[in-house]
């Protein structure tokens, strides 16, 4: 295993896997968990830690991937793993990295780069824990990766809406009724864009989807290699929360990308790079209509044509009106454009 040369932010150099056949065979997330059939988040855990390798500490904030993954005596984690509180993925990553760094630089522990990964769900990460994640992304002297597995609801506690639940979705906190068809009228937070835009010294932010497993693992490897605090947002189809046949998990992940609802990109040192099928969309391939994605899921079964049109319009805006399509929602005013182009 190669190591980078400077100690302060020394990291493991994890080269990308060049194709599925080059992926290592060792598993660090194995049997013992009891997630649902078709659970993409469990797959994300497995790929995440496979990409990171054995010299890794994983911190897991409360959520499905805690409760369903680590029953006492049947833990699936081969690497050291520890629970952290619902809103604490940022603090867990920071505290673990700071503890290791202090002990190594004071000679109290053998110096070596150890990967620190903290994961959170959309509730723990984008709602309750967003402040702590934001703080951690400003602490550039500590190496850690925060991975947000986004199954678009508080799926462990009975499918309640989060700030990441799509507009109009049926959850137990937003049931469609006779007087109100749509209870959840908010548009989903733009987490990866927010983290990249708001933390200029965070060197790496990416979005991933486990439907594209090798690329997903390579983004994790890139984040861990580049060092400092990094952030990855993974979109994880959830059969229980989204109400679909578990066999469709991968297909729904693909459709989320092909419809342009969820873009795949990485922001490294401020540079935005689209990849995978999102890159094709940017280069001109037509986006599939959002209805192809939405109508495969029971949580949108109450949608009328009006709702589908509204959803399509909002996604179109992401691609046609945002300054950096599907990444940054700012728009330059005409006056501003002129001012910027005067040079």
């Amino acid at each position, binding site marked *: 295993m190669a190591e980078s040369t400077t100690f302060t932010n020394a990291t493991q150099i994890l080269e990308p896997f060049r194709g599925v056949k080059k992926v290592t065979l060792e598993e660090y997330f194995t049997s013992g968990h009891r997630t649902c059939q078709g659970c993409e988040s469990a797959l994300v855990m497995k790929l995440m830690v496979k990409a990171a390798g054995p010299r890794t500490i994983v911190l897991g904030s409360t959520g499905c991937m805690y409760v369903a993954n680590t029953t006492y005596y049947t833990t699936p984690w081969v690497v050291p793993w520890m629970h952290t509180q619902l809103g604490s993925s940022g603090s867990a990553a920071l505290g*673990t990295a700071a503890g290791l760094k202090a002990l190594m630089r004071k000679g109290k522990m053998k110096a070596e780069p150890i990967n620190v990964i903290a994961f959170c769900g959309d509730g723990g990460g984008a709602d309750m824990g967003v402040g702590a994640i934001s703080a951690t992304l400003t602490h550039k002297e500590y190496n850690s990766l925060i991975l947000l597995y986004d199954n678009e609801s508080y799926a462990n506690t009975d499918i309640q809406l989060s700030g990441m639940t799509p507009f109009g979705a049926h959850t137990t906190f937003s049931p469609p009724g006779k007087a109100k068809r749509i209870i959840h009228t908010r548009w989903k937070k733009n987490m990866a864009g927010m983290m990249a835009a708001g933390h200029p010294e965070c060197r790496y932010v990416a979005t991933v989807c486990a439907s594209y497993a090798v690329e997903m693992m390579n983004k994790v490897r890139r984040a861990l290699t580049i060092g400092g605090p990094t952030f990855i947002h993974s979109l994880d189809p959830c059969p229980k929360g989204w109400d679909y046949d578990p066999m469709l998990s991968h297909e729904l992940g693909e459709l989320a990308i092909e419809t342009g609802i969820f873009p795949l990109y990485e922001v490294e040192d401020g540079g935005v790079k689209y990849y995978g099928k999102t890159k094709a969309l940017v280069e001109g391939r037509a986006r599939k209509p959002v209805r192809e994605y939405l109508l495969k899921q029971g949580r949108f079964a109450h949608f009328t044509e009006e709702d589908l049109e509204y959803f399509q319009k909002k996604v179109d805006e992401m691609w046609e009106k945002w300054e950096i399509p599907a990444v940054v929602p700012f728009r330059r005013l005409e006056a501003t454009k002129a001012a910027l182009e005067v040079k």
Partner: protein
Amino acid sequence: MAVATRPAPAAAEDKELLISGSEAVAEALTLADIDVVTAYPIRPYDTVMQAIAKKIANGQLVAEYIVAEGEHSQFEIVKHASTVGARVFCGSSGVGWAYAMECLVVTPPLRVPMIALVGNRALDDPGAFGVEHNDALFVRDLGWLLCWIDTSQEALDTTLIAYRVAEDRRVFLPLAISADGAFLTHSQALTLVPPKEKVDRFLPRYNRGDLLLHPDNPITVAPQANEDWVIEIRRQNNEAMARAYTVIEEAYAEFRRVFGRGPENPWFEEYMTEDAEVILVGMGTISLPIKVAIREMRAKGRKVGLVRLRWFRPFPTDRLVAALSGAQALGVIDRDYSFGSPFGSGVVANEIRAALYNAARRPPLLSFICGLGGREVTLEDVYKATEMCYGAAKAGKSDPKTHWLGVRE
């Protein structure tokens, strides 16, 4: 009977500094070579963080110093640093301590020996900077060791003792040191600062052993346990707390051996109690007006004494009963409240009532609430409480109702 409260003469190698309680804690943290410290501003505890920041800026202490974005993160960061083997320090006051509450709850079952300074402060609302003990008392049932200090010297000494006790594998529990806001955190006194070599003899390195979270020791910490195991884990916590009695006694004995000073009785200070008819009980800096009042009253023939509790968790039940049950009457002065509690009494009064329940002799006990929100406890308050205690002694019984002292009607 301990009367003298001035520090023992300095050993040749000790430095004598004029420092506040917070600064004394920072001196101890430097000597203890802490590894990770997290800060967040709230008065009055934050003076300790200002002192640590200077130590780090001047190169006297090498530690990861992190300014968090709130108390929740502040405590969670050091919790995780401790699990990978770092010696950690944290602290807060008032509603800041409340904001961290979720993270305070999880440290005892995780067996994280973090040390926290609580600069006692009234809870909101309304806003007040002054001392009340309710903030620190939030954790009294949770497995935190909890003590109150009275002087800068005690702040320094107790901080060193705290690490030795909390990091003892028989205990492995978090420990909160409570210091009265302003009266101690901000008040300076001459304090002996021992040399590092002595501290190294007294304080072993933090060794997390088989609980270390590290790739060489790939354990899973705090899996979902539910009703299968939770009650066993709670009992383990309780047993660790019970073992702390021995560990605290040992630590103070060793402290006296290494540093040549420190109290014989770790649990509470006894001031003129040997022949006392009335014993007053309190925690923290309330001892000062009480001691002055006692001297005044003794000059007039009133045999009054003070027990100042240092350790609240674990509660020194047996020693306290032995020290108190011989008096003709007891007056417990709480700088806290517990609305709706038995007799509306403060927390300390009801703990002592419970401790005395099985005692062969139970003196009448009067309960007082005084000095909330940082209001000064006056000599008049103490005289009044004492006279009421004499009344109960004469009657041979006490009305259990609680008396609020120094309150505008």
